[in-house]
């Protein structure tokens, strides 16, 4: 398999210089490394520039509603846990419209991977603040600058029981590829918040801006086995230090473990012919 095997007939419509191209490359490389051909994957997308990705990669694709990729992804995984399920969305999908679903999915520890194209702005709708926007960020809807304290996705994940909490950077494709591979291997919910430059609507946070701040956790001998230490990493000031890599990882029962109905064969392969309610109806006589 080669990464090009995952290309569809539609060439990505992203702006030149968009970080999404790098994430696209990393995802394809990861699936090759994992030896998962298109038909074995269910890729679930939200709405936004990252959502358009739905047309650019081969697989069993579900292009969901804004903010609602995670519930659909959970539904798909519970229905057929033999599929490798990857949910993909932007910071608007995951931390505004779909924040409740993100928290629930973290808590559930369902075995799927979630890649967030975090460019700290809403781009497809032509430039509005997002929950991860830097305070003071001026946009068409926040002419005086964004006010609210930014959502800290990794801090939320660490405190909500995340079992694989990672940050990636579009400017380091091999590293991001590896994070995705590990995330898929991880038995549980894997969150990868990817720093994605958006040259069109968030030009200040450019590849260069990130390169002055990102550092690889594992380069310093960091071991992601302590939730408190991970929390401290999430609190590093974003305009000075941006850790990349796995902040925290643990093994815990996954959502699928709580459903004995699917412990053997996938739900969608269940034989529907032998259902017999007559015994249970006796109780109503």
């Amino acid at each position, binding site marked *: 398999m080669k990464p090009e095997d995952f290309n569809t007939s539609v060439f990505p419509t992203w702006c030149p210089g968009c970080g999404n191209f790098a994430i696209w490359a990393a995802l394809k490389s990861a699936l090759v490394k994992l030896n998962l051909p298109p038909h074995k994957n269910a890729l679930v997308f939200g709405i936004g520039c990252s959502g358009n990705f739905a047309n650019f990669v081969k697989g069993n694709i579900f292009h969901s509603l804004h903010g609602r990729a995670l519930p659909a992804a959970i539904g798909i995984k519970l229905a057929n846990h033999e599929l490798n399920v990857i949910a993909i969305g932007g910071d608007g999908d995951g931390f505004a419209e779909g924040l409740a679903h993100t928290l629930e999915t973290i808590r559930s520890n369902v075995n799927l991977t979630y890649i967030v194209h975090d460019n700290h702005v809403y781009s497809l709708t032509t430039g509005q603040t997002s929950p991860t926007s830097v305070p003071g960020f001026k946009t068409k809807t926040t002419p005086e600058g964004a006010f609210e304290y930014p959502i800290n996705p990794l801090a939320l994940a660490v405190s909500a029981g995340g079992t694989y909490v990672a940050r990636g950077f579009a400017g380091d494709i091999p590293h991001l590829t590896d994070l995705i591979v590990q995330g898929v291997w991880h038995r549980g919910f894997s969150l990868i918040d990817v720093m994605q430059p958006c040259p069109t609507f968030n030009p200040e946070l450019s590849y260069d801006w990130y390169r002055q701040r990102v550092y690889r956790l594992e380069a310093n001998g960091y071991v992601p086995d302590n939730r408190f230490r991970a929390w401290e990493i999430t609190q590093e000031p974003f305009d000075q230090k941006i850790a990349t890599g796995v902040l925290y990882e643990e093994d815990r029962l996954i959502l699928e473990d709580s459903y004995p109905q699917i412990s053997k064969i996938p739900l*969608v392969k269940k034989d529907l012919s032998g259902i017999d309610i007559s015994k249970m109806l006796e109780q109503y*006589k």
Partner: protein
Amino acid sequence: MKLNTITIKIGGEAGFGIKVAGATLAKIFSRAGYQLDDYTEYPSLIRGGHNAYELTIGEKVYHHVRPVNLLIALNQQTVDLHVSELSPDAGIIFDPDKVKVAPQGRSFPVPFSKLVKDINGSELTKNTVAVGAALAVLGANIEGLLDLLRQTFSKKGSAVVDINIKAANAGYRYVKSNFPDPFAYQVKSLDTTPQIYITGNEAVGFGAIAGGCSAFFAYPMTPATSLMEFMMKVAPKFGVLARQCEDEISVLNSAIGAGFAGARSMVATSGGGYSLMVEATGLSGMTETPVVVFLAQRPGPATGLPTWSGQADLRFVMHAAQDEFPRVIVAPGDAEECFYHTAAALNLAEKYQLPVFVLSDKNLAEGGKTVAVFDQSKIKIERGEWLSELSGGEYLRYKLTSTGVSPRVLPGTEGALQIGNSDEHDEFGYSTDSGDMRTQQMEKRMKKMETLLKELPPPILYGPQKADLTIVSWGSNKGAILQAMEELPGVSVNFLHFIYVWPFPTPEAGRLIREAGKLLVIEQNFSGQFEGLIRQYVGRAPDAHLRKYDGRPFWPHEIATEIKRITKGF
């Protein structure tokens, strides 16, 4: 009354087992061969407030009736609130130490609290004393109750079983010793043809399981919650996956994801919860992912009357979500129809790849009724068109076909990739904004309505083929209307009942409506939502309507009064 029914009512404070006491009585009479229908009123509280359980038993019962013939009052409020509902010869069983009753009908003072103290029972066992007393008043034997108590409490240990047996006997014997003259209403033993006593929600649950539902998602909301609890408890025994999601938005989106992957999905909610599912309804429509949405109606708007009933969500559900796409709406009229048509809804959803609504309401959902044992052999699980083999080339998930239905392939199948796309899309599924392809896909989707209409059953006509007055109604008014018609044997009236309310009109319905006598449309909403469909789609203006929107059911006598009023003018 022609059908010789007895209506029994139990009232008391919430939290004191009124519903359980009622269900116990119902089960006893169901096993004794009686037909019955019950009705519960309760406020949205856990303790305090007033709960009332009402049960009509008879040889043939379509719907509970008033007036009440026997009132069991566990507190003063019960007497105060319901004394006006009693027949002149009604009996009242009450604790004279706690409750005062004015002289009316026949009094049966039974010291529940004292009897409970004598056997060292808790306050809750008062109910069992009361049920025992009621059976004695009605001339029934105690064995049915004792058997039931043994079964019901067997898992809680012999101490619990014993105290309840003692309580039942205490109430029974007290009445037998102190009130030797038989009460005006006496029960007898009837032919015991097998039947079940079941609520509408449980019937829906069985219909879902028998109908091959494999994934069920819900969030608690009265009056759908009891279906959710049934599914969470029972469905896994049949391999069904049942999940409580974090909110209703997730409920329907998860169900659609599961459906995309090939599960037979269903969700359950009421109007307020469905409001949160509106956007995802469109997702089902656009991606052509099957899903069944069970909606048990209650009065709104907003929080409304959480524990009461209504039929005011028809237009909401018909039009929910932006733009246009096909959907089916099914409104079963009783517990039997709940079973068979929930299974049918799952088939329709998968065959036509669209959302199918099953509309119930609090009265139907939570009301218990005796029905014939469900015949599972009548249920066939139909999964629609699936490609058995891939004949080379690209698989087209949204292939333009003459029926509007594009064959499916299970995601994960080698050689067949697909995109379930919430964007408008081409035949493969890629997003498109081409005007031509949009037009073709819209027409393809809407074509499914034409195709499926052919297989929808017509409305059912009850009574004579020809009559001066035709009642038209939908959903759970069925029982009250049939009961009312039984009370008026000399009147020329028939009844056209719609289970399938959208698309409208179903085959034959137009003709039946046009050929009917004077039309009286009965429904539980303010603006005549179903009546409007008759005007718009059949082109006939009904002659009269009867609407109720106070959260209570139509009582048969209300309908009978209206029928008499209208037919007098003929």
